[in-house]
């Protein structure tokens, strides 16, 4: 029966090919626009580390200006002062903890012919690698002793390894970075979490770093700090004063596998803030937050306003396309009144007719959906080229999105076909036959 309906649908579409084409195009455009924007939103709000996002917690304390909140809505600042972050890190109240900030330095290739180049890096403590499941190609991170002893050790990416060491295992070799010799302990594979959840202070979709060094080296003024740095209280001159200042530029993540540990850690930071309050800091009301990965990304609203606005527009656009389809299908099915009358007279039941026309709407939907996928792909390519590099990983159709597009297309066209189909089935065969 189904194949017979398919044949009927094909014949019917061929007869009114202009209208059919218009419908397929309308659905395709609607699906294309909707899928382009849904994909971008879906990837922007994706969970970058699903296996343990509920065990990793970002620490926020509020040592900000007593007269002005950091965020207008009262949220605590998005980074910590160096002194608070190091104190919490040294206290070791969590099974694992990563203290970090952005760093930058010049790398001088051993090959004197090659030009030195600027590289973006991260200064972090040893736990960073196991906490965030950073994938290693060769070697590993460093141990806690390296942090405490301020050792010149470095982890590099495979890109840097390819560039400087021809892709060979370079662990144990020396990297000239920021005018010092660093010992390479590991090379990581390509690793680009989207969003780059572990540091969103300069934007949530930045590229990941090219090298990693111990955070403790930051106090030695060897590498430049890069990223956001905000101060509210005047500081004295000099680096020591800067480290002790109320300027925020440090991030702290802790890994807390159980609920009990989360509660313990929360009471620990509350106690810390209360104690600091006694010494005259933390003048604002107690405002400490522990947020797991997804809560943190939601708090900082990493999905851009433009993206959600576009998605709302695109869904309305799809609605217009569907209204268009309803109208055209209605016109088309009513135009077939005489054919329907004949089929009824020859014994087709209303159920048969209903199914036949639903198959026809579904076919139009499928064709529109497939064409829509092509349009969505084109749309994503356009988005990539217009918005630039940071969009590259956010404008990719994955299997889920393709499936969603097809289902959305078929589902919405069947929905659009329901009323026209119902109307078509109301045809009185006797009247139609009489009119012939």
């Amino acid at each position: 029966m189904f194949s017979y309906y398919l044949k009927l649908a094909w014949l019917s579409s061929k007869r009114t090919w202009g209208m059919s084409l218009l419908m397929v195009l309308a659905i395709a455009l609607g699906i294309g626009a909707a899928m382009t924007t849904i994909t971008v939103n879906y990837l922007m709000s994706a969970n970058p580390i699903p296996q343990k996002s509920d065990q990793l917690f970002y620490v926020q304390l509020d040592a900000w200006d007593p007269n002005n909140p950091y965020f207008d809505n009262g949220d605590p600042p998005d980074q910590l002062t160096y002194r608070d972050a190091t104190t919490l890190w040294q206290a070791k109240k969590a099974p694992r903890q990563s203290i970090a900030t952005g760093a930058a330095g010049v790398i001088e290739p051993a090959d004197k012919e090659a030009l030195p180049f600027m590289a973006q890096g991260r200064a972090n403590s040893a736990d960073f690698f196991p906490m965030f499941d950073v994938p290693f190609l060769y070697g590993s991170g460093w141990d806690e002793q390296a942090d405490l002893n301020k050792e010149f050790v470095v982890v590099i990416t495979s890109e840097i390894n390819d560039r400087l060491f021809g892709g060979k295992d370079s662990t144990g070799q020396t990297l000239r970075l920021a005018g010092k010799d660093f010992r390479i302990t590991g090379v990581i594979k390509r690793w680009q979490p989207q969003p780059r959840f572990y540091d969103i202070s300069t934007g949530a979709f930045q590229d990941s770093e090219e090298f990693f060094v111990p955070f403790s080296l930051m106090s030695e003024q060897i590498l430049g700090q890069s990223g956001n740095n905000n101060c509210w209280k005047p500081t004295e001159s000099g680096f020591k004063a800067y480290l002790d200042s109320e300027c925020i530029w440090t991030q702290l993540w802790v890994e807390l596998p159980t609920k009990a540990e989360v509660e313990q850690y929360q009471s620990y930071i509350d106690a810390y803030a209360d104690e600091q309050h006694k010494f005259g800091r933390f003048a604002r009301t107690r405002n400490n937050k522990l947020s797991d990965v997804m809560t943190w990304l939601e708090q900082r609203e990493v999905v851009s306003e433009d993206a959600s606005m576009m998605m709302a527009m695109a869904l309305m656009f799809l609605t217009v396309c569907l209204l268009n389809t309803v109208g055209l299908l209605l016109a088309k099915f009513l135009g077939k009144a005489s054919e329907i009358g004949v089929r009824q007279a020859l014994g087709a039941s209303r159920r048969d007719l209903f199914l036949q026309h639903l198959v026809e709407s579904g076919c139009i939907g499928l064709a529109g959906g497939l064409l829509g996928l092509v349009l969505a792909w084109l749309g994503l390519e356009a988005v990539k080229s217009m918005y630039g590099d940071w969009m590259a990983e956010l404008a990719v159709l994955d299997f889920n999105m393709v499936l969603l597009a097809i289902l959305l297309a078929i589902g919405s066209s069947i929905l659009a076909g329901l009323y026209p189909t119902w109307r078509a089935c109301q045809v009185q065969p006797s009247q139609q036959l009489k009119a012939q």
Partner: protein
Amino acid sequence: MLELGPMLRALMRNKIGALLIALQIALTLTIMVNAIFMMQERNRQMARASGVDEQNTFYLSNTVFGENYPLQSNLARDLDQIRKTPGVVAATQINAIPLSGGGWSMGLQTKPGDDVDGTGTAVYFVDTQGITALGVELLAGENFSESDISWRERTSNKWPPKIIITQKLAEKLFDGDWKKALGQTVYINNHDPMQVTGIVKSLQSPWNGWDNTEHASLVPSQLENKGSRLFIRTEPGRRDALMPQIEKMLADSDKQRIIRNVKTMTETRAESYREHQATNNILLTVIIVLTLITGFGIVGLAMFSINRRTRQIGTRRALGASQWQIMRFFMLENLLISSLGVVLGIGGAIGLNIWLVSTFAMTPLTPGLLLVGCAALLLVGQLAVSYPALIAARISPATATRGRA
């Protein structure tokens, strides 16, 4: 008299078809008006002048990696070399670039004290050629002199006694009257006094989306930093030729540093507003495609209804209706449907705008734009229906005498 009676009766017989078109027009209007409005807001932002002579300026980053590098004398050497290059108008060291997204901001206040609310401003450290190199216009006061320029270490938090501020910042600090600002003392770091010795017409901050983006200050300091930028202005038309030349000259003169990120201000502006531009392109595409779909939808449905009424039209023609009367009938019918759609659309557009305003902190819609949108869609409706109406008008009166067409 116009045939409103029969027209309405015909419409009532095909309520759903008419309603579908009306709804499409309503939604199209809703989206179109809000999309155009969003585009206008972005265009306004993009049209703001940065205050810099964007056509004839470029900059580069100078990153030193050598140990014991003589920062002070080599900076003087670099600037001297650049300034001597034929075609260069002026050059200065600078800490940040307008519109670039990265920079330094401070608070200024007219009274000292920890509890006084400061006004945010971008800070640019420049030397005596700063004003000429940027190409900003000095409205009042005077440029920095050689003796005003002091060296600033990376971690220093000391401020020189003089500052030049923008007109908008002066207005904000001194109750809307920028002329009052000249010669006054403002406080940075809550307590440190600086005297306003000059006011420039406009100079934007590095952040295009910042509320205070028109607030900028020039401070007479040279940075004793391993990372800094050099900002260069050339004679008109010579920028593109001088860029590689100066880059090579600096790179060759000294192997203990990297010259990188050589960029024009024109590129910086394009990058700064890249997302705005992209969003506007998408919105424009949406508006065009949407209007086309609605237009073709109207064509399709009108063709269908004319096909169904062929005999009826033929009969009317046979009874003496002119071609023009037939055409007018369908045009008017569409006008009626479109008007219903437009009325619904006005409600929809305002509703969507209210949602956008509350969710995305946008400003409310202007009535003028809404009216233009309505007129545009009525016109689209008329254009779309004119072809089917023409076909209807051409139906021969003889059709009435034949059987079903």
